[in-house]
């Protein structure tokens, strides 16, 4: 294919990538950019050009040994739900922006340790980035069938590198705070992960089903080739040990590679995204790997005896069949795999270099003295960092040759990064791990890596004549770099991993237990190991003693964050810890809070140094720290218990408050009731007394008048009697002494029976009473009592009916297990506010000031008691005109109360 055409395609592809990154960056909280799938796909930055091309090469040339690189992540992925979550929590609360920050913070904000971690990462990853550029360059020339150009400006990789460097430095440094999320980059990487998988599956399907006739066909033909059996089995016990060590290596790599730490921890928006990653990421790797075997062995069959680079089989096969489009598609997939790795790694490394080497060792002096700090200085240093890293990697690729295949250099990078494992996992789970232990272990591990891998690789693997490789250092056989101490059955990579990690871990543990760490390390150890306890108020767990002034700290913050952000942050702090803004002295929490604010900008070590420069810290002894931590732990537990108890108390007090209110209301009602009753009792008594006095005092009253007075005394006595009866009636109902005798009756008849004695009154009032019902509706009730209810309701209705055209409608309806009786008049109606109170025995008394009560005010209260004793209910219903009172009665015996039944039905 024509170089210019391919370059044009590449430019278009890069332009689309820029566009996606730009679009994602603009969209705030968009569900397209902030979701668990984008997060998981961004983790697939793990699959670089090495996966895309290198795995095929290894499967074709040496067999299964590419698989452990993917089995490791598949093994460890389910446990992310615990481990990765913990790492993310620690990083979020401490505003960590790189793995160097993570390790250096845990070991007491150690500037030196941060620098060592950065150097380790740099030495492992820089050649790895170079390797990706090499892959791009080689595959470009395979696709265009052109020779690799030696002249710098004729090499297309030069331009690709510059474009990538510009892209990464622009989108990778949008925020000064390096712990901020880079949505643009992450979305672009996720997009590329989809493309590389889809393109790889396409070429896999093409080889399997178009070039060959399915998997079986490939197997049958491949099994005839030489070494098929050896290349498709592990082989034996020593090889299985190699296999195990490689699995271990990739398990570490998935946590420790700077690009993985960047996407899985720093760019994580929500913890719950891990829940998807634990199954989707292994699935992604699985799909990727299914087609490695058919492509590799398809290539072996097609190119048997020809001298071709097996790494490029996935390009050579479609090219062989002149499938130009497919070749370009495969090339774009590989290109995507390479550039996502380059971009993410360079961003991660650049943050590490600026925050852990440049600022703490060089810029910090300037930052301390400068009155105002331009964030641009920090941003620019990161931009230049990213740009120069990619360009440096380009020069490594150009001038150091990198003669090895894709896998071997990738593996060397893995082994170097694995040296961080003891210190990193110790930070998560072991309180006693110390800074000294971490520093020495990493250095010793790295030195062994240099001896067993880097030096031999630089000399040349194939150079077996080399004295150092074949005879060992100074001719001592036990010091042969590939068979150190006579261990000769491991391959170079597992061999180096074994010895380096062995000495690394031993050093870490033994130094940590032999020398006490300082109080700061122990403090962070507690915060890291027990992060779940401190997740909400982690500033509480920070132990610090000394004198510090709020003003001084604020001044430092303002220089980096600006006045507005500092003020906002201080407000958040004051609200969170309920601190008065006017307090001049700063406490430990404010110190930690301010360090966190600066960490994202300048790294943990520099943040600590800067804050320390404006505060006066007193040394604390280790036992003191432990005591404070113990107390703070207890405090946290006590606080938790207190919060729970106070919640319970609040609930109880709310209940008590309600009960009290209801009691007060009832008390008031009782007083009002007594007033009413006394008033009601006094009226007839007064009348009786007046009549009796007249009769007593005056003997000469005419007989007619005397009779009239005696009649009055009788009728008032009757009234008094009725009133007392009603009060006693109600009292009996309320105390449960009243017994009803329900039986099966025709409710219509009972209602008619109730109306009969009232006929005269109805006639006098000129009211029409109308019954809407079937002739016979049986219900289960005490007839005398229901007559009492109906009489009461009709009497009430009569009282309120208009003088002209008064109408009372009684409607009886069957509904489920109950008979509903509606008594409706066309009077002035009931105020909706009184719907609930109308059945209270004291209801009338609340109206007493407005109008003279008609009746005793106990009628409806008694009705309510009677109906409820029948398991029914009585209530006022909304009505367009007049009042409508409804009561229900059970159809049969033993029916639950109306309320309960309604609840069950609903």
């Amino acid at each position, binding site marked *: 294919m024509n170089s210019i055409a391919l370059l044009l395609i590449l430019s278009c592809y890069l332009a689309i990538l820029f566009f996606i990154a730009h679009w994602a960056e603009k969209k705030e909280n968009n569900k397209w950019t902030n979701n668990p799938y984008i997060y998981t796909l961004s983790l697939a930055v793990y699959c670089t050009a090495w996966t895309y091309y290198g795995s095929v090469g290894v499967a074709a040339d040496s067999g299964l040994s590419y698989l452990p690189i993917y089995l490791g992540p598949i093994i460890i992925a389910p446990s992310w739900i615990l481990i990765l979550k913990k790492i993310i929590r620690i990083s979020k609360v401490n505003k960590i922006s790189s793995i160097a920050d993570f390790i250096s913070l845990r070991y007491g904000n150690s500037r030196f340790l941060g620098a060592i971690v950065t150097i380790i990462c740099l030495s492992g990853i820089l050649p790895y980035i170079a390797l990706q550029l090499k892959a791009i360059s080689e595959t470009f020339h395979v696709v265009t069938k052109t020779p690799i150009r030696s002249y710098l400006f004729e090499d297309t990789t030069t331009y690709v590198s510059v474009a990538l460097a510009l892209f990464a430095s622009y989108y990778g440094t949008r925020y000064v705070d390096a712990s901020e999320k880079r949505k643009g980059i992450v979305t672009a990487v996720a997009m590329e992960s989809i493309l590389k998988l889809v393109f790889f599956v396409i070429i896999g399907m093409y080889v399997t089903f178009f070039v060959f006739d399915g*998997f079986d066909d490939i197997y049958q033909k491949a099994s005839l080739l030489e070494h098929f059996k050896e290349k498709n089995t*592990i082989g034996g016990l020593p090889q299985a040990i190699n296999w195990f060590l490689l699995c271990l290596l990739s398990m570490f790599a998935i946590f420790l590679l700077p690009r993985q730490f960047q996407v899985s921890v720093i760019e994580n928006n929500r913890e719950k995204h891990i829940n998807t990653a634990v199954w989707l990421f292994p699935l992604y790797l699985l799909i990727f790997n299914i087609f490695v075997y058919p492509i590799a062995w398809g290539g072996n069959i097609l190119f048997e005896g020809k001298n071709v680079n097996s790494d490029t089989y996935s390009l050579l096969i479609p090219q062989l069949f002149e499938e130009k489009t497919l070749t370009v598609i495969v090339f774009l997939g590989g290109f995507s795999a390479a550039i996502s790795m380059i971009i993410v790694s360079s961003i991660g490394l650049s943050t590490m270099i600026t925050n852990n080497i440049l600022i703490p060792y060089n810029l910090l002096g300037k930052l301390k003295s400068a009155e105002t700090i331009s964030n641009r200085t920090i941003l620019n240093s990161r931009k230049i960092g990213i740009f120069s890293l990619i360009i440096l990697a380009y020069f490594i690729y150009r001038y150091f040759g990198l003669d090895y295949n894709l896998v071997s250099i990738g593996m060397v990078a893995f082994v170097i990064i694995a040296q961080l494992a003891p210190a990193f996992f110790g930070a998560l789970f072991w309180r006693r791990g110390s800074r000294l232990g971490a520093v020495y272990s990493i250095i010793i591990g790295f030195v062994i890596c240099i001896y067993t891998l880097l030096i031999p690789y630089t000399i040349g693997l194939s150079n077996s004549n080399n004295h150092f490789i074949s005879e060992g250092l100074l001719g001592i056989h036990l010091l042969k770099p590939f068979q150190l101490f006579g261990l000769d059955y491991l391959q170079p990579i597992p061999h180096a991993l074994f010895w380096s990690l062995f000495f690394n871990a031993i050093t870490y543990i033994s130094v940590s237990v032999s020398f006490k760490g300082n109080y700061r390390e122990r403090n962070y150890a507690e915060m890291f190991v027990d992060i779940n306890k401190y997740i909400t108020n982690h500033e509480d767990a920070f132990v610090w003693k000394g004198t510090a002034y709020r003003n001084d700290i604020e001044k430092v913050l303002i220089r980096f964050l600006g006045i507005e952000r500092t003020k906002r942050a201080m407000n958040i702090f004051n609200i969170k810890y309920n601190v008065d803004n006017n307090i001049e002295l700063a406490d430990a929490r404010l110190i930690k809070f301010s360090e966190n604010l600066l960490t994202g900008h300048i790294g943990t070590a520099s943040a600590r140094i800067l804050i320390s420069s404006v505060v006066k810290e007193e040394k604390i002894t280790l036992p003191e720290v432990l005591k404070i931590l113990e107390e703070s732990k207890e405090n946290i537990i006590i606080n938790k218990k207190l919060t729970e108890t106070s919640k319970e108390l609040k609930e109880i007090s709310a209940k008590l408050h309600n009960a009290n209110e209801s009691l007060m209301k009832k008390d008031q009602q009782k007083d009002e009731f007594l007033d009413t009753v006394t008033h009601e009792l006094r009226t007839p008594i007064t009348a009786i007394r007046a009549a009796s006095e007249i009769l007593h005092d005056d003997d000469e009253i005419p007989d007619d008048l005397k009779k009239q007075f005696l009649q009055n005394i009788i009728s008032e006595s009757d009234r008094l009697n009725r009133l007392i009866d009603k009060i006693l009636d109600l009292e009996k109902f309320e105390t449960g002494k009243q017994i009803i005798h329900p039986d099966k009756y025709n409710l219509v008849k009972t209602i008619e029976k109730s109306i009969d004695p009232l006929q005269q009154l109805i006639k006098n009032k000129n009211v029409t009473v109308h019954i809407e019902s079937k002739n016979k509706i049986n219900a289960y009730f005490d007839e005398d009592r229901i007559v009492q209810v109906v009489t009461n309701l009709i009497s009430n209705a009569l009282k309120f009916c208009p003088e002209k055209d008064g109408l009372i409608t009684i409607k009886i309806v069957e509904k489920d297990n109950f008979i509903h009786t509606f008594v409706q008049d066309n009077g002035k109606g009931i105020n909706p506010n009184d719907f609930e109170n109308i059945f209270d025995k004291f209801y009338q008394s609340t109206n007493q000031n407005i109008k003279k009560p008609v009746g005793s005010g106990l009628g409806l209260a008694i009705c309510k008691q009677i109906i409820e004793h029948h398991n029914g209910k009585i209530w006022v219903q909304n009505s367009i005109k007049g009042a409508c009172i409804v009561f229900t009665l059970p159809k049969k015996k033993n029916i639950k109360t109306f309320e309960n039944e309604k609840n069950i039905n609903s």
Partner: protein
Amino acid sequence: MKKRHQHKMIIISIILLMGFNLPIVLLFDSSQNLWGFPIIYIYLFSISTISTLFSFLIVKIYNE
């Protein structure tokens, strides 16, 4: 997700570590043909598929 269910995921990891390594993996170390793949591939791929399925189910069922 409750601690108990998180521990189930750790158990999957431990089982995978055991299943993918010696001595168990050597029991399936054969290049014989099964559905067009050497048996060792089929073993590794199927264990990965099953574990992924289990992880998916645990996360879906017990996620709160």
